[in-house]
């Protein structure tokens, strides 16, 4: 896979937090629940980051808006800590449910960032209007911020406010990039093949529609 700057910086971000003795904050955003593929992709990335924070003995804080995501994240992080051989460092209270309301969630996470002053912030998942609030507050505490979302609007805010941004499907490719797991890499390859096929179809349809505007075989 080609280099993805935001993912290369994960190790640096966790290392920075360890050196500064400040926590890492990871949040999957308000916009998605557990059934959303972006949330699952985000939890995959969480698994790798949790393993690193366990190895480096760095606190990982994970606030979320959904109690099911909280429950799954607790299991994911517990497993990651166990895999790193540091099961005793896992703290269930650091993986917490804050509020289902969008700006209740934003206010809670904003407050956590301001009080805990994390050295590194991961904003990976589905975000809506709270994205810029979280990114700007992260800036004010001097955190390195790695963001990634499937929302095209919030991407613009993240690109302006964060140090690294994963654009769209890079979030889905991230877990393959970090783990080098064969099945994930295979599905990333499948995505690439499908994209090429779609592109060929688009070019063909555009040419055909240009030559024969009355045709409709390419319409859905």
């Amino acid at each position, binding site marked *: 896979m080609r280099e993805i700057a935001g993912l290369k910086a994960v190790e640096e971000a966790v290392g920075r937090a360890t050196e500064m003795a400040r926590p890492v904050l990871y949040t999957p955003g308000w*916009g998605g629940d557990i059934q959303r593929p972006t949330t699952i992709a985000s939890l995959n990335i969480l698994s790798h980051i949790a393993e690193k924070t366990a190895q480096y003995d760095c606190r990982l804080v994970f606030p979320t808006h959904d109690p099911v995501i909280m429950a799954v994240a607790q299991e994911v992080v517990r497993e990651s800590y166990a895999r790193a051989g540091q099961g005793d460092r896992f703290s269930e209270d650091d993986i917490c449910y804050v509020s289902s309301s969008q*700006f209740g969630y934003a206010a809670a996470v904003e407050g956590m960032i301001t009080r805990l002053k994390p050295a590194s912030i991961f904003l990976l998942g589905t975000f809506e209007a709270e994205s810029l609030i979280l990114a700007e507050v992260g800036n004010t505490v001097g955190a390195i911020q790695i963001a990634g979302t499937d929302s095209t*609007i919030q991407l613009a805010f993240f690109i302006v406010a964060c140090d690294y941004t994963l654009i769209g499907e890079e979030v889905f490719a991230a877990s393959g990039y970090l783990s080098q797991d064969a099945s994930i890499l295979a599905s990333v390859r499948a995505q690439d093949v499908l994209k090429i096929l779609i592109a060929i179809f688009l070019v063909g349809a555009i040419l055909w529609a240009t030559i024969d505007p009355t045709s409709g075989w390419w319409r859905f």
Partner: protein
Amino acid sequence: MRLQGRHWAFLGLIAVVTVTMLLGIRPAVVPSADTERMYGYLDSLPAGTVLMVSFDHEASSLPEIAPLAQAFLRHAMSRGLRLIGVSLLAEGTGIGYRLMSQTADEYGLKYGTDYVHLGFKPQYIAAILSMGESLSKTYPEDYSGNEYGALPLLSGISNYDDVAGVVSIADGSLTTHWIEYAGARYGVRVSAFVTAAMVTTYDPYLASGQMYAMVGGLRGAAEYEGLIEIGGSGTRAMLAQTAAHVYVILLIIIGNVIYFRLRSKRREA
């Protein structure tokens, strides 16, 4: 506390918005093609047509959503359209009910005959798909606890086939689910009134025809108020919004001036 650059930017914004709001000037607003399309769509529906309106927003966006919702409700109710209100977000339920009731009172309309509000249903994807099968089974009672069958407006309404379309009043991406599930699966015509931040999210759907019409933001509300010739808070806020835009443009210019000056100093050094 020492004020930093961003604090001055915040204070400047407060000053600009406060002064322009106090001036109370309502500039004329030219409606855009999108707003005219929505207006034309609702205007073309015969009196008595049943539309579903979904209040898919939270309380936080009320200052922006309320002008949009009121403009739509005034237009629809003045045209004699019959409205079925639903909500896929809990906070939008009470707000939607109140907006519908207040607007209906302006036109002397009767609950149960001219409009109803069915209330909130959690798990929005399940709710949208379920309404496509049976509205009465999804909502056995309305928001006030009346039985579905007891409401005259709902007699003959079983599912989406019996409504002309769905209008989603949203501050987030819930309208996407209306398009993906109600529109794609059941062929419902979906239109939306959305906050300005969501306009570009739905542009691709509007361009491809998956969404029929869309009005966005406070500006859209002001445009719609102009078309229905009823003033509202959308028009009132236009000068402040324009001033805030100009202020942000100035901040961008100032930011770049600072950047280039620092860069040239570093090069000289």
